[in-house]
């Protein structure tokens, strides 16, 4: 017989561990949630499961030896990390890069940005319960991986850039395949929007969910699509132009509300802009050498330097302290997802557990990049 409690329990809070092995956390992230029924009272993202000590490794390696590490932080936009690291050294040591190499870097980096956004698109919709768009996105992404595989030799963890240039020249087949990809993705763009953007379930799960406005973004140091969805026109490619970006025409898509739907739209529009950039870069791709004059072992002058690039997830920074030798004295990586994840401590309280998936997905984190 059931025992009658003297008084009904009105409120009870409990804790829920989401992760570290949850499918929607995309990596080893643990969200420690304090719940009142289905509502979140407190959220504590616990990171560090994938900490490999990249920054420590740098201190005992030559600048060139650290090259493969850069793309292993963010394995989805590895080429942009690779490019950023190499460009940071070049700027510090004053090494010139031939224009052909710069254009190749930009083309490959933008292809990588598209592949990263396509993966995000597929998995985000899958987190929300739609399986089909995932197949569309991976179908297109596979072409990029094949193109990059041919020229760089790897599918995800690229070590393509070299100090003073790139490792391998591109050929006509690369150019033809890239042109073909641009055409193909554009022809399928309407399908993407018909499948997802106009889907009423998707709209209900993203509109007004997880609003990150300008003020919150400023407090937490958010960057990338998360910041731009809040209406801030801030893109490192425009604010602190590097490589050949000043010569290329592109727009910076922004949102207005700063909710999950706006972040989705910003990323989709960014893919279109990246296609534009690649198209122009292919047109202008100059002839010439792909490796400039760079010393075998680079020795940046004594002192420090900060270099930022726009990675797929936001502002990526390399802070290098050099003691004038062939080894970095200190290498600090400012990971874009770091601030974008921390904002969850502010966003999640007051929302439903079901929305956690939508908010976490819309932020697009890559945990190994935060853990380093």
């Amino acid at each position: 017989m059931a025992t009658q409690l003297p008084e009904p329990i009105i409120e009870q809070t409990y804790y829920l561990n989401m992760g570290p092995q949850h499918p929607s956390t995309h990596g080893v992230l643990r969200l420690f949630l304090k719940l009142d029924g289905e509502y979140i009272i407190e959220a504590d993202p616990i990171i560090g499961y994938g900490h490999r000590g990249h920054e420590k490794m740098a201190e005992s390696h030559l600048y060139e030896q650290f090259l493969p590490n850069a793309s292993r932080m963010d394995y989805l936009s590895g080429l942009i990390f690779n490019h950023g690291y190499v460009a940071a050294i070049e700027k510090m040591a004053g090494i010139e890069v031939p224009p052909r190499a710069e254009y190749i870097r930009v083309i490959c980096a933008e292809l990588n940005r598209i592949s990263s956004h396509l993966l995000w698109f597929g998995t985000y919709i899958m987190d929300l319960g739609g399986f089909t768009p995932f197949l569309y996105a991976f179908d297109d992404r596979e072409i990029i991986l094949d193109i990059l595989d041919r020229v760089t030799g790897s599918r995800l963890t690229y070590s393509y850039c070299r100090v003073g240039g790139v490792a391998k020249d591109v050929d006509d087949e690369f150019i033809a395949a890239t042109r073909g990809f641009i055409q193909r993705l554009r022809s399928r763009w309407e399908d993407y929007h018909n499948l997802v953007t106009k889907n009423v379930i998707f709209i209900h799960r993203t509109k007004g969910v997880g609003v990150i406005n300008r003020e919150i973004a400023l407090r937490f140091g958010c960057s990338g699509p998360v910041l731009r969805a809040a209406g801030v026109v801030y893109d490192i490619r425009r604010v602190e132009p590097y490589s050949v970006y000043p010569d290329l025409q592109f727009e910076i898509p922004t949102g207005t509300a700063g909710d999950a739907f706006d972040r989705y739209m910003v990323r989709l529009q960014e893919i279109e802009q990246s296609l534009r950039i690649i198209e122009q870069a292919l047109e202008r791709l100059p002839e010439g050498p792909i490796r400039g004059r760079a010393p075998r072992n680079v020795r940046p002058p004594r002192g420090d330097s900060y270099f930022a690039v726009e990675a797929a997830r936001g502002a990526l920074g390399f802070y290098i302290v050099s003691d004038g030798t062939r080894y970095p004295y200190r290498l600090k990586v400012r990971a874009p997802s770091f601030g974008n994840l921390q904002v969850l401590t502010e966003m999640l309280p007051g929302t439903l557990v079901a929305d956690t998936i939508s908010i976490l997905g819309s932020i697009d984190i890559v945990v190994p990049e935060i853990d380093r």
Partner: protein
Amino acid sequence: MSFDDFREELRKVVDPAAIRASDHGIKGYSLEVTARSDQVGRIARAARDTDLFLEAISGVDFTDCFQVVYFFNGFGAGSRVQVRVKVNKGESLPTISTVYDAALWHEREVFDLFGIAFDNHPNLRRLLLPEDADFHPLRKDFGKVHAVRSTDEIYGDPTA
């Protein structure tokens, strides 16, 4: 609010001789500020009030002391500011997490990797390493490093 406002505010907080302009194209930041630990809080408030965000906090270990490096940045071109604070070994820094929420994690990371404590931080526990770790890996006496230098060897006057 603009970057120039911040520069004005900064002059009120720190000695103008400690503020140096640097070439953004080479260094990546427009202002280089050498501050004392008791000035950090006021600098951070000035940065917040002039619409800058906290980009990163990093530590650097030297033979004689730690240097904690703050990066503030705005949404305009060339508005990154480096604030460098000397922290003697065994000493702590005041927290700026009351000013910037982002500092909650950045300071935890510096504490985790360097063992530099931040006074009045509401939740100063390890961020990346397991909670039972008994070492601070980015100190130069831990693991394998190429060199240990003094502050002057890196940041000192290059002509001296």
